[in-house]
């Protein structure tokens, strides 16, 4: 009597197992290359040449030390950190103040200014690579970290303003009015009320800008030529020529470059996933 039911239950379990199998297969294809990068980074070049699959027989953390100093990953890391942090700071200060104006102030050109920034999200960076290079040359900024800070800020502003404007607009006007009645000055209102209340939105755009700036390659490639000023993605690109057979060091260097991104991702995965998906769809 319960034959058909058992059959249905068995089919349901088999179906579920099949779904898990699909997920696990894709998971392995996605993650194994990264796991391989991680464990190859503590093997010797000889071990990698002999058997690229095998796990390390002993740990060789000296690959990291070599990558950090010999391959100058330490210098690139420091440059990336400086550029990324300065660009985020500048983007947030400029972006939040503009977003505050656009969200709470009344002026005729408001819609025009906002749409000007929104248009920026549609412009592919490649389309202005050449003119931007010429611009930086004219401003004598070529081969400076400042060129990257300014360009990353300019490209980060549209999304930053877009997110912050809609968040600040949703804050109740009554709070602003109360603060003004209490005699708060405008800078004070901005620093002590608007910014703290926009905390979650500010954090989201800061994280998204961090990821974008830390990964950026194209602009660094055309702006920077001096070794000592290269950022991580550009410095890694050096490996293609100079260290192309030192695979262990390459893997260590790539792991160092990826670590801040992966830590950020592990800490803020929901914010990052939602923010990147939203930002992508807005584009």
């Amino acid at each position, binding site marked *: 009597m319960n034959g058909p039911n058992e059959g249905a239950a068995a089919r349901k379990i088999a179906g579920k197992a099949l779904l898990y199998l699909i997920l696990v297969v894709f998971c392995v294809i996605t993650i194994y290359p990264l796991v391989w990068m991680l464990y190859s980074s503590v093997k010797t070049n000889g071990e990698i040449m002999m058997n690229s699959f095998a796990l390390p027989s002993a740990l060789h953390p000296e690959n990291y030390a070599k990558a950090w100093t010999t391959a100058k990953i330490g210098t690139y890391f420091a440059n990336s950190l400086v550029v990324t942090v300065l660009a985020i700071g500048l983007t947030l200060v400029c972006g939040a103040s503009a977003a505050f104006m656009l969200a709470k102030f009344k002026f005729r050109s408001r819609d025009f200014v906002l749409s000007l920034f929104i248009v920026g999200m549609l412009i592919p960076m490649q389309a*202005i690579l*050449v003119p931007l290079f010429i611009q930086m040359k004219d401003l004598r900024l070529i081969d400076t970290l400042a060129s990257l800070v300014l360009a990353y800020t300019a490209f980060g502003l549209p999304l930053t303003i877009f997110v912050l404007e809609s968040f600040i607009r949703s804050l109740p006007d009554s709070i602003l009015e109360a603060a003004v009645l209490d005699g708060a000055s405008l800078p004070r209102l901005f620093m002590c009320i608007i910014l703290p209340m926009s905390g979650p939105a500010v954090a989201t755009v800061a994280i998204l800008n961090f990821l974008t700036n830390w990964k950026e390659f194209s602009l660094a490639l*055309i702006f920077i030529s001096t070794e000592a000023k290269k950022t991580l993605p550009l410095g890694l690109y050096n490996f293609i020529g100079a260290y192309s057979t030192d695979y262990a060091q390459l893997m260590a260097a790539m792991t160092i470059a990826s670590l801040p*991104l992966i830590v950020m991702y592990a800490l803020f995965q929901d914010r990052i996933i939602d923010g990147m998906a939203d930002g992508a769809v807005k584009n």
Partner: protein
Amino acid sequence: MDSIFKNRKYIALGLAPAMIIYLVFVLYPIVRSFFYGFYDWNGLSKPVYVGLSNFAAILSDKVFWKSFWNNIYIVVVSVFGQIPLGLILAVILNRKMRGAMAFRFFFFMPMILSTVVVGLLWSTILNSQVGILNALLKALALGGLAQNWLGDPRFAMPVVGFIVVWQFFGLYMVILLAALQSIPKEIHESAALDGAGELTKLTRITVPMIWGAITASVVLCIAGGMRTFDLVFTMTQGGPAHATELMAIYMYNKTFDVYKYGYGSAVSLVIFAISFAFILSSRALMGKASSEGKGGEA
């Protein structure tokens, strides 16, 4: 009271920093590229006005067309690879599976990596000496299939297409999963009661209901495919023999290898125009498809 929120001086001061940076480093360069596209200029001497001849030269350059078709290849692989794959995984993860969040975390991970790292990592994986792909094939007694994957013009583009899908499918999965989660559960339940199978539910209910998200994904694939640069530049620099040349790589080589800034600006304008044309026409086509679909149901 209201006056402070209408004070022009405050408004100008508040907007100025963002406006100045944005104007100087985004809007003005675009205007300038329109200008330089019509000039012959090597970056040092005085630009010479040459009318449309840069554009004529681009459109008659075989290498440009090769790169154009390679961009189209990436767009097609993205649209028909990433979106269906993203949709299938999103549908699976939408079924209250145990561990769904962990799978989502892992699938999205390649998205957050630097494209340079992805390019170098895959170059190593596909390397004919130390690469694990050929090693895997040998271990499976399929050593005959081992190839110099990126060095062979026959395989280079398919391999690039695979890696693009590998890096970005997680984004589409997340976009489509968010759309799926906004479909009310009752709709699926009543369809199940009506005896609709899984495939019918997918094609008749799920896909039409998230058509907006699918359209946005297609536009994203086109925009992304048209601007692909970093990944291929780090893996092949457009080689072997222009086999993986892309429009952005073509632009880079013309501008920074042979110092034809005017020509490079003209290439940027062409990329810009082509991307916009494709995005607008895909929007129009898919918008039409969705309104026809709705008309059919009504």
